[in-house]
């Protein structure tokens, strides 16, 4: 277990009367790839900017490597940021851009030269030293921005939706590139994105945020397989979220049918939310299923078929490698460990905070 590099303690921040962050607590371990994931306005970028020193929190502390850096200006912090729109210095060459931080810290010319060369190689841009940023493509500019940050060997690298402006193919390439960089350099990454797939692909830890609160924190597998509330379930991947009734331990009633499950401790006859991932819905012959329905839509998606099944007044989303034509009668079956039971929030506030806090 690595030691804790960053600790955010009770961070609050509001703009005007709009609360962005409310007593946020978060700790990040050394050499971790941590992703802040959430819809726009959830407070993830503000968290990053507070870490970078571009915003100061209304209250709370930022502890970096054991020291309180809450009031330290950005230039005194041993971390670097890769900005959403790259923020390259358009009046400087690529070399000057990358050497910017090194020059300030007073490194020798030879050192800077070598370092720039190395950084450019690292991001696959050898030979671009004398070009101007405007003459580069978006992906290249992005890589320069990353090179400019990592060349300073920061303990912590902050990345603010760095791939948002790139097209799909390039984005996927860059994702692998970032993972490779992280492994080669041994730097701690904090990555902000609203793209759940990106988060799942790269992260060691994902922090799902909404309306200024952490909804859930965990490994990609945990987050995906065991969302702790409807928001997380809905935000991460596709899912069927159904109203249910916990009849007793390990038995839940969904749409009038009884499904065995593995959850315990919810009490008896309690209303709950039930999450079932579309790939966990098994379609069988009508008589073999727990409930019966009719296929109403069918789309071929390449790896699998996507189907919608009308059953007991609910439209089930189903991913399967088996194809059932539209109009076909089917039976629906779900394995007990594929059923995820969650508390039902009783108010809007509770919904925002997340029931597990």
């Amino acid at each position, binding site marked *: 277990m690595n030691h804790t590099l960053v600790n955010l303690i009770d961070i609050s921040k509001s703009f005007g009367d709009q609360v962005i962050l409310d007593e946020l607590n978060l700790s990040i371990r050394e050499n971790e790839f941590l992703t802040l994931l959430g819809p726009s306005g959830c407070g993830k970028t503000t968290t990053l900017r507070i870490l*970078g*020193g*571009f915003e100061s929190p209304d209250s709370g502390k930022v502890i970096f490597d054991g020291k309180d850096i809450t009031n330290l*200006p*950005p*230039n005194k*912090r041993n*971390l*670097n*940021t890769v*900005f*959403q*729109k790259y*923020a*390259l*210095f*358009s*009046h400087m060459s690529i070399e000057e851009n990358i050497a*910017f*931080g090194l020059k*300030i*810290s007073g490194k020798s010319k030879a050192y800077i030269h070598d370092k720039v060369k190395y950084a450019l190689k690292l991001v696959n841009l050898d030979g671009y030293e004398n070009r101007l940023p405007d003459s580069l493509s978006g992906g290249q500019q992005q890589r320069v921005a990353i090179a*400019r*940050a990592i060349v*300073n060997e920061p303990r912590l690298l902050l990345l603010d939706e760095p791939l948002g402006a790139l097209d799909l193919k390039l984005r996927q390439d860059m994702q692998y590139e970032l993972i490779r960089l992280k492994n080669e350099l041994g730097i701690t990454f904090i990555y902000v994105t609203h793209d759940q797939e990106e988060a799942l692909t790269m992260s060691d830890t994902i922090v799902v945020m909404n309306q200024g609160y952490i909804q859930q924190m965990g490994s990609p597998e945990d987050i995906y397989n065991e969302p702790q509330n409807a928001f997380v379930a809905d935000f991460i991947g596709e899912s069927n979220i159904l109203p249910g009734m916990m009849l007793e331990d390990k038995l839940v009633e969904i749409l009038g049918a009884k499904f065995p499950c593995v959850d315990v401790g919810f009490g008896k006859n309690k209303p709950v939310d039930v999450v079932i991932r579309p790939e966990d819905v098994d379609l069988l012959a009508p008589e073999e299923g727990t409930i019966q329905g009719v296929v109403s839509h069918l789309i071929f998606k390449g790896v699998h078929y996507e189907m919608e099944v009308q059953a007991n007044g609910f439209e089930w989303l189903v991913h399967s490698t088996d194809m059932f034509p539209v109009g076909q009668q089917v039976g629906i079956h779900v394995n007990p460990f594929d059923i995820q039971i969650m508390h039902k929030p009783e108010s809007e506030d509770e919904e925002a905070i997340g029931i597990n806090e």
Partner: protein
Amino acid sequence: MNKRKLLSGPYLIWSVAFILIPLAMIFYYGFTNSEGHFTFENVLAIGTVENFKALCLSLLLSLISTLICLILAYPLAMMLSNMKVNRTGFIVLLFILPMWMNFLLRTLAWQTLLEKNGVINQALGFFHLPSQQLINTPGAIVLGMVYNFLPFMVLPLYNVLSKIDKDVIFAARDLGATAAYTFRKIIFPLSMPGIISGITMVFVPSLTTFVISDLLGGSKILLIGNVIDRQFQQGSNWNVGSGLSLVLMVFIFISMLLTGKYDKNGEGGMF
């Protein structure tokens, strides 16, 4: 595509008729004498001691006032560009608003303020301070230039500065630069188009003014603008006036080249 180019036709005709031909007229007058013969005399008239002195004084005063404008306007433009959008519009308007009070009246009002028994000296007297010689000095002329042309410096600077992505500044700070270093290496170079455009917009009218030196210099201080104005309005010698105008245009041409070099995309505009 070609059809759209045709839209500039009327302007092309207009600019030939009212910009290029008139300029040609100045060249014609500038290089002929009153009998219509070719001569260099009019242009060389700049070499006479008194004209050359006036030119040098104009250059000096307009350089000083341009510098003061830059020093005053830069922090101002930075403040404006950091303000919330809502308020900026209003404050920028505050700087354009005085233009609705006539230029001559505004300058004349400074007379009332600066005179021997003017408002400022009376205020000084009230506090038992010695009264100052303010009006009819080169300083008063510089003040008049700064006052009248300051908005032309503020607006382009404001435009350039507010277009700089805040993240670029944050990036520099993030990479370890102090506020001062960030200004020197990032903000200042990036605002160059605005600086050049502002300098041109202040320097050229300052260099050529004759009204401000008339009103605030008590006609004791002769600038090149006054010399040219006198050739047309009093001395009745249009040829020499045109010749001297041509000399002035050399400086204007230099400004144009500089602007073209630093402001390729017209970022440093007034708007």
